[in-house]
């Protein structure tokens, strides 16, 4: 049996959570997606459960209270997650922001797409990049 793929999406938009989860399911049927509505909830979830170890983390940039880049900084401070690839997930891919995210340790940038097929191919690529066999 294929190994389970655990992803963690931090996004305040319920629609995007739903679309993301739907497409992820289509890409990888053993995928399991956890959500947090904002940076605070995400950090709480990570800290409350020491065994919570997702394979992939996605962060929206426009988050209420703590923005996605600050959230990325906080996650990178947590030792057990330091090798987990974190992808930024946002509508606009302004060069300056993309570069800033990379400098702060983001593995990549995932643009919110109009067509779910585009998201699908993006996700396939990301999953194929994961080093550990699943």
């Amino acid at each position, binding site marked *: 049996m294929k190994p389970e793929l655990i992803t963690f999406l931090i996004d305040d938009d319920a629609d995007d959570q739903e679309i993301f989860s739907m497409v992820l399911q289509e890409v990888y049927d053993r995928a399991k997606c956890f959500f947090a509505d904002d940076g605070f909830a995400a950090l709480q979830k990570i800290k409350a459960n020491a065994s919570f170890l997702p394979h992939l983390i996605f962060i929206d940039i426009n988050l209420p209270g703590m923005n996605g880049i600050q959230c990325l900084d906080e996650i990178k401070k947590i030792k057990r997650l330091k090798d987990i690839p974190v992808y930024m997930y946002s*509508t606009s891919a*302004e060069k300056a922001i993309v570069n800033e995210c990379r400098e702060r340790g983001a593995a990549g940038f995932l643009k919110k797409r109009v067509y779910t097929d585009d998201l699908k191919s993006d996700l396939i690529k990301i999953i194929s990049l994961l080093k550990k066999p699943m």
Partner: protein
Amino acid sequence: MQPLEKIPGFLLGGGEMGERIRNFNWSKTPLGTPSSWDQSLKTCVRIMLTSSQPIWIGWGKQLIKLYNDPYKAIVGGKHPDALGQPASVVWKDIWKDIEPMLRQVMERDEGTYVESQLLIMERYGYPEETYYTFSYSPVPGDNGGTAGMICYNTADTERIITERSLQTLKELGTLTKKNNLEEVYTTAAKVLEMNNKDFPCAIIYKIDEEKKIAEAFAFAGIDKDHPELPKIIDIEHPGMIGQNLSRAVKENKLVVSDTLKRWKDLPKGFWNVMAKHFVHVPISHPNKKYPLAVVSAALNPYRKFDEAYRNFVQLAADQISLEVKNVLALEEERKRAEVLAEIDKAKTLFFTNVSHEFRTPLTLMLGPIEEALKDPNAVSDNVARMNVAHRNALRLLKLVNTLLDFSRIESGRQKANFMLTDVSSFTKSLAANFRSIIEKAGLELNINAESFIQPLYIDREMWEKIVFNLLSNAFKYTIKGGITVELSAEKNFAVLKIKDTGVGIPENELPHMFERFHRIENVTGRTYEGTGIGLSLIKEFVQLHGGSISVESKSGVGSTFSVTIPFGKAHLPSSQIKNEDNDFADIISDVYIEEAATLLGNVAVENELKGLEEDKEFPLVMIVDDNADMRRHLQTLLAGKFRTITAHNGMHALQQLREVIPDLILSDIMMPVMDGIKLLKEIKSNKKTEQVPVVLLTARAGEESKIEGWETGADDYLVKPFSSKELVARIDAQIKIKQKRDTILQNVYNLFDEVPFAIAVLKGEDLIIEFINRYNVGIWQCSKEEVTGKPLFEARPDIRKGAEWVHAEVYRTGKRCVINDLPLELTVKGKTQTRYFNAIIDPQVNEDGKIIGQLATSIEVTDQVLARKKIEEANRQLQFAATLGQSIPDAVVGTLPAEENYLITTWNKGAETTYGWKADEAIGKPVSAVLQTIFRSEEERKISEAALAGNGYWKGEVTQKTKDGREIITLASIAYIKSAEGKILGAVGVNRDITKLKEAETALGVAKEQLEITFKNIPAGIYQLNSKGRLEYINERGAALMGYNSVEEVMEHNMEQLKKHVDEKFIVLDETGKEMTEEKGTIYIAIKTRKHAEAVFQFINKETGKSMWILSNSTPVYDDNGELSFVLTIATDVTSSKTAEIALRESEERFRTLAETLPQMVWMRNADGNIEYASKAWEIYSGKKDVSEAWRTMVHPDDWERVMNSWEKDSASGTSFRYEVRLKNREGEYRWHHAAGEPVKDQSGKIIKWIGALTDIHVQKTFAEKLEDQVAQRTEELLKANKELESFNYIASHDLQEPLRKIQTFIALIERNRENNEIVQKYFEKIRSSAERMSDLIRSILAYSQLSKTSQEYSLTDLNQILDDVKNDFELLIKERDALIKSDKLPVIRSNPLQMHQLFANLISNSLKFSNHKPEITIDSRIITGDKITVNGSVNPDQKFVHLTFADNGIGFQPEFKEQIFQLFQRLHNRAQYSGTGIGLSIVKRIIEQHKGFIAADSVPGQGAIFNVWLPLEQNKSYDH
């Protein structure tokens, strides 16, 4: 000196020259001794010596010269040697000029008269330009024939030179309104050239501050190619030639230099010799270090460069500077206007682009929604949801359409197509579209449209928008009654009237109805939607028709909009009049009517008090919003945690608040009837509701800051869109804060009630009493309920006087205020008492540091204060006396009352000096032990003792003894000091030592003798007449002045005798030249008025004819009884100063005559600053006669101090001054003036006068000021617009993309899941919410009405490169279509590369799109001249253009569409066949227009299309960067 008796009568008098002639040894001259002179010569000499006019006499063949005192100035340096010399020797230098005239006189016995003759005289060692008016008259000798001549002279030099200077200044003053600096300089040079005497030649150099060079620009009296003229001078390294000019530039001041060394051939101007000096005067500008120009002028070789000449040159330069400033201001303004026009253009372009961006996704949304609505299988719930989405999308589309129309008009692209139309039936059918909807709303629609005989041309599309806009407006604001559409002919106009019976428009809003983005606040209607640009848009439409639009309205009765359009077509541009009557699509009408229809649905009733019965544990939130969708949405969000009630506007909310007080109010801002801000104010000003937290919702950008700055205190606000979590969290927080605050506050107040001092808690600026404690209640004697909730001074008006300032101080400083012994007039139970408090007032500050209230604590200290006051009062008066005592020289002695033994308490310095006792010796001892008083009589003693005992006041002379036993006489006074209650506090004596005075009285007799000796010696006549009119005393000088030989002769004469004597000897005239009468005499006046009298008289000796001016002063002296004892008269000979004065007055008279002709206000002040003269211009300007009085009221109060300081400083230093000042004219308007003043000095350098002028510079000055203001304002606007644009960019790139992307995603997902009704339903709901979110966003963007400038940058662009890039972009499409793009080598042109890329991309994609088989595109280019261009438009026939052709083999189009394909949204094919937005070609056209090029298209259907593009090879340089 010759003895007097030997002098012949004709040689008497005559001042210096009289004496010189008498003493001259005439026997050595051909004239011989005076006694042997001809009688006629004697007579002439007599006339000459007694005349005050300059006269000379030439006698005998050699014309031996004799002249009088006034003539001395004319001979100048040759005096006194000229006396007795032949005229040819004296006037060697001008002999050639005057010899012929003299010859005429002597040989032909004919007189001559010459007026203002220019004579170059060398009087002071240098040749000088002088002017004289003189006459030569022949004089016969005793033996017949002409023996000599007499010459009368008038010196005109000063007048001629002054007149000339004024003329030049006057002409420079008329140089106004030149267009550029060059013109000012050239004209100024012309004016200078006209005065070629003072400016033999002049060059105006322009100074280039950056390059640091001076360039010769304008020339007066010198050829611009003069070989010796330096054309360019390097200011830093000027060399020998330019060093003085360079110095004038660097030091920015006037520099004078020699010329002779380097100029070999300097133009001489009027003169026959070259100038010796040059002057370099800078033309300065206040904001610049270097002058803008320098006038280098050669100076008059025959005039000394004295103060007057220097001032004249400086004034001329000032005048030029003034004009230069004016021109610079104008240029600045012109540049500003150009920049603004650029920005405006950019703004329009931006609007257009934004609107396009919105239309595309909207169309995308509307399509699928409409399809889904038509689907017969749709579930009814979904239909309702989709209706909401549809309605909002339609509304949005209308906004965008209006914006587009608006920007099209702005850019001038909206060209009307006027067609002859049957407007009556057209309007009828348009209005009929609205009938069903209006009637459905229960309203009536009346249409009365006349048919016209006169032809009416309209643009039908615009007309339709006009009618629909006005109708939908009327519908929105009319709830009952009806709407009437009327069309009628009035004279030469068709008039459309749309009347309604709606809410009407407030009167103050009427003038603004057609302004862009203007919206009326708080109006009842069906909706509060609206862009605020609809009416301004139709106004533009109406104006394009040459018509006008107006509105009349009465609040509550209804409004009438009238559109008036002229008949015929004469007023319309002929190019826009179309004949063919092609149909046009009727899309817009649907939008208007559909939108109106959706408004009817809004009336849906909802359960407004829903949730009240639910669990009372939950807090109650009141939702106030006019949009039913929004209310429902908010209710859903809050359900589960809160109970909710709703209200549909502010007024409705207030009604509900009377019954229910919620825990929180959540309110929208923009609502009809009463908006959120007003509601907030009402809530916060009502005691019952003020504690309820209010959270405002805002959708409009910019409102955010408005709320932040809001003073009434919204507790929080949220900007739409917001997340549900945020909303709940904020509401929750507000409610919790309120609850916590309430509890804490109650605890504090309970504590306050227990403390033993007064406490009041005051809120807001009005100091509303929120709480007073029990102690305070005790003081005020009122109940807490009576005063709480009221403003402090309304509740207690009695303490306003005493306490208001303290509270104000706390608000002002923001700091604690501690006041001890604060008196308050407290009225308790009808009785007013002054009571005292020690008060501490603390400001209460909110989190932002803003003062929201005050806490006042106070303790009553009335008893203590009153006790202390009593003591203080007793001390105060004695202290006062003591203080006073120290400052006066008299002896001041203060004592305690009798019961205290008159112990001395005060002993001042005066007392120490007077009595010899030191203060420490005297103070504390009884007065009798120190001062021994010897009263002259018993009575005196009694009175003084009575006074000491407190019976009032006493004053008298007493003899007292000093410490060393000396007796002194003092003038003593004693006064008692009593307390307010009448108790005696002590006595104060003020004693003056008058011993010396008494001694002096005795010495008076001795002094009188002394006086007489003095009188005798002073050089003035002294006359003392007693009351009987008898002369008691006269000194020698006095006797001589009156024509007596000795004092004895006149002694004992009375007035009558004196008068008789004087009348025999003199003709006496008063100052005005009238005969002297007794009443004018100073003695007479002095006796009559009992005051000093002064007058000047002229005494003309009847014998000698000599004239003498006497200043007579008379002073009456009275004895102790007030009887006249004598009159003392002093007569001074003021002849010399009087003569000078007369001369001065005459010259002033001339000055005045000139001054009156000037437009400037000319003035003259004496050395004390008093105005002596003001030209008529003053009275004309100020409307007041007395200028010295008017001046104070004329000067602007803000300028007064500055002007007075400047005047004081300059008059002290004696330098000329310049300043600018505002003066009030007779209409009360203040106008700016340039004031200039020059000192006039006498020979010793003392200032005797100031002369100056005020020039009206209001236009220049205010112009510059206004300009600065405008610039500052514009800059601010630009900064603001820029900031807004930045935030808009953010919204456009993030927030707007979000919902759009989602809508697209969901539409795609719906397509994938067509069969699954449940999923489709879910996604439609999501589309709806995304669309709503976007609608909110767009509405807030509408508020951005100002935009920043987008830069238009041109560079050399290789079109081959552009084409390659575009091919790369379309690589896939080209492959897919198997297309072929052919081109030969394209040129390089100056253009905007980005726009070129878009142009190529649009044209190529157009060709790729509209093809059936393999597309083939051919691009050709060649360079042509403007005359080869085949489209209409103004083009320079010689300009070089690139002609590009894009030819394809596609489906082509009908030739009649060749113009229209470039119009926005013009689609020739249906969407299913060929995709296209209808924007691409209009963008192409716009790009080409921006590049000042042209485009035309041609086609044969089915055989392809050709696009011809002409672009200028070079762009105008001014656009280059």
